């Protein structure tokens, strides 16, 4: 058997795990590991400019590819800088392994230089964390970390590695475990047959059904099964912000997404439904609005891999714990062989009602002859990229506009921080996507507030040649904060203005990229075309958009699903 140092074992374990990229930043406690990285070329390391960005990059990679991302940082500040990124991944159930250096074992607890209790600090925002107590454990710990991160309901796993675990001159026998077994961790591999049967019977008997799908469909790689079942039944489908792309947005059975800024028809259909089939979503507060007023006439079937997501905020009538792809496959088979068929008359009148709702609002917005509307920028981008781009976003109004007006027909292409709402996520996430999808268009739709939270990564983009397109919807304010202040604080714009914005064009140029400013509406299309034609260049597009625009529809606070503002003056 081969003898390897702890550091070499760690890198070999990553190779044997099939890891292509790690994103990170070196420092004292991780130097043995960085030396082992240097002496091989299978695992490629991407050097970021701030550790938070390394985590978002790994996250973007994971969301686009469905494979776990990997991060490597040093102890102390290196490790604590990853926390926001880890929490972001945790809230959206993104598989990821974060390897953190730690001070040597004999120094732990002594307030040593760059010492932080990373196991303690990360505990509330990880699926699990592990620390290495002996170098020989490294292959098993790494195998376990990826196994836990990627199975069941995925999530981030932190591995804490004291420096003495990776000492170069101490060598141990290396072998990478093929399998890992944990007696206390056995994610469900199929749903309960009786519950599935019951669900199908209810589904076929429904008069006003809605399918409500979430990010779990994308994580569970169940888009095909969901699409097939939905089409077979002919039922309307809405998805969450995290579920965008799990069902083709251009399909007529798709109602758009639901919730706080969801479409009028999706929220109305939910409220008036008699049966909700929830697939891999979690009845989050940005979806349900006030839970006590939530969908009063609906019975609920809830499929989720995580039992704790079921009946957490809204009681399920038929809970089904299991992987969504396996459960949907069984449901499909039962629907096919069932003698019962959906009630055609009931369904026809349900669709008639839904089409009326759709016609009533239809995601309209006011246009202006001279001011650029953020919505039209997104619509244009969708047209110019044939709806095929990978789109990452930051957090705020631009995120909602991007999600509302870019039509995604495929999963894994809409990449945003839905749960935690992390500003600064968009650019590094886009970099993680571009790295593995060099031939695809990758757009980072952002705002002048969010982009400045990780703008230093323009430097990383230069180093690794990552020609993403940054679409800065510049409204010279923290738009979503300002919108809430307009609506709830009598327009007292407390700290929501950006009074000294940098010249983004010069900034992009300083980092070695191209900057393009668009101020006039008549230039919008031609300039965007020019930008998209620059295939091998990172282009920072600074677009001056309407400073007073709000995101609509917007659910009325503490109301039901159907209580919405449809414009600044129109409330239903």
């Amino acid at each position, binding site marked *: 058997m081969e003898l390897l140092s702890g550091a070499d074992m760690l890198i070999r374990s990553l190779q044997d795990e099939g890891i292509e990229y790690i994103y990170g930043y070196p420092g004292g406690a991780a130097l043995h590991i960085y030396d082992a990285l240097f002496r091989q070329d299978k695992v490629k390391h991407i050097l970021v400019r701030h550790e938070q960005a390394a985590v978002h990059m790994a996250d973007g990679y994971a969301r686009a590819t469905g494979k776990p991302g990997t991060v490597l940082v040093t102890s102390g500040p290196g490790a604590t800088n990853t926390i926001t990124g880890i929490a972001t991944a945790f809230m959206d159930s993104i598989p990821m392994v974060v390897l953190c250096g730690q001070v040597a074992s004999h120094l732990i607890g002594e307030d040593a230089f760059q010492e932080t209790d990373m*196991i*303690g600090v990360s*505990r*509330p925002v990880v*699926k*699990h*964390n592990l*620390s290495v107590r002996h170098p020989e454990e490294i292959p098993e710990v790494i195998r376990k970390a990826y196994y*836990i991160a990627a199975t069941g309901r995925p999530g981030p796993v932190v591995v804490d590695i004291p420096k003495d675990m990776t000492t170069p001159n101490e060598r141990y026998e290396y072998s990478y475990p093929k399998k890992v077994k*944990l*007696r*206390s*961790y056995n994610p469900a591999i199929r749903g309960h047959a009786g519950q599935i049967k019951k669900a199908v019977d209810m589904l076929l008997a429904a008069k006003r059904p809605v399918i409500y799908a979430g990010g779990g469909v994308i994580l569970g790689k169940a888009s095909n099964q969901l699409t097939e079942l939905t089409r077979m039944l002919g039922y309307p489908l809405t998805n969450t912000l995290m579920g965008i792309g799990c069902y083709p947005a251009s399909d007529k059975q798709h109602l758009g997404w639901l919730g706080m800024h969801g479409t009028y028809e999706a929220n109305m259909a939910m409220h008036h439904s008699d049966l909700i089939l929830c697939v891999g979503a979690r009845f989050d507060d940005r979806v349900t609005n006030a839970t006590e007023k939530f969908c009063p006439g609906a019975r609920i079937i809830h499929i989720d891999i*995580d*039992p*704790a997501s079921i*009946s*957490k905020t809204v*009681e399920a009538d038929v809970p089904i714990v299991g992987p969504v792809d396996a459960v949907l496959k069984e449901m499909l088979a039962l629907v096919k062989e069932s003698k019962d068929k959906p009630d055609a008359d009931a369904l026809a009148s349900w669709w008639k009602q839904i089409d009326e709702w759709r016609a009533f609002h239809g995601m309209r917005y006011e246009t202006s002859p001279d001011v650029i509307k953020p919505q039209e920028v997104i619509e244009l981008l969708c047209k110019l990229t044939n709806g095929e781009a990978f789109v990452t976003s930051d957090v705020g109004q631009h995120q909602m506009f991007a999600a509302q007006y870019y039509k995604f027909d495929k999963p894994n292409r809409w990449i945003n921080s839905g749960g935690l709402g992390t500003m600064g996520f968009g650019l590094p996430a886009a970099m993680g996507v571009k790295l593995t999808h060099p031939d695809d268009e990758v757009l980072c739709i952002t705002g002048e507030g969010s982009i400045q939270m990780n703008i230093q990564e323009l430097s990383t983009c230069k180093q690794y040649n990552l020609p993403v397109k940054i679409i800065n919807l510049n409204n010279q304010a923290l738009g979503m904060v300002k919108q809430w202040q307009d609506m709830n604080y009598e327009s007292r714009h407390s700290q929501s203005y950006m009074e000294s914005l940098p010249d983004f064009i010069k900034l992009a140029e300083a980092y070695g990229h191209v900057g393009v400013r668009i101020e006039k509406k008549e230039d919008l299309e031609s300039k965007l075309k020019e930008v998209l034609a620059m295939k091998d260049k990172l282009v920072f597009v600074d677009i001056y958009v309407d400073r007073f625009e709000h995101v609509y529809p917007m659910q009325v606070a503490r109301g039901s699903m159907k209580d919405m503002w449809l414009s600044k003056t129109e409330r239903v």
Partner: protein
Amino acid sequence: MRRIISVLLENEPGALSRVVGLFSQRNYNIETLTVAPTEDETLSRLTVTTTGSDKVIEQITKQLNKLIEVVKLVDLTEGAHIERELMLVKLKATGSQRAEIKRTVDIFRGQIVDVTSSVYTVQLAGDSDKLDGFIQAVGTSGVLEVVRTGVSGIARGEKVLSL
């Protein structure tokens, strides 16, 4: 409603803090907590008493089950069970009080385990209500110090919490 949740936990560093952390992170209430290794040295048994609506208790058990190091758990209050808590109390005991305290200790089937000229140290085991009852009976004015272990529990009959 008060519940007693009994948990088999991997006997590993950090496992306990995950359980305790979960309660504070999710705003659940811990009334008592006891933990010790079992006959199987790889496992610890943890007993937590908590209060909450049925919905909250369901979430607590689900969230506990999600922790990787939780091997198995049971809500003992769902069935017939035995609960015990141990209490050590230092009581002021002078003059006529001494006989009176001794009688009360006997009634509660406790033991005086340490004696000085002015202090009795009493050991008492039972469910939590019995221990509360004892303190009430002797009167809080004479109580110098109280230490309670928190509740341990086990199901009645043949039901067993094991691997």
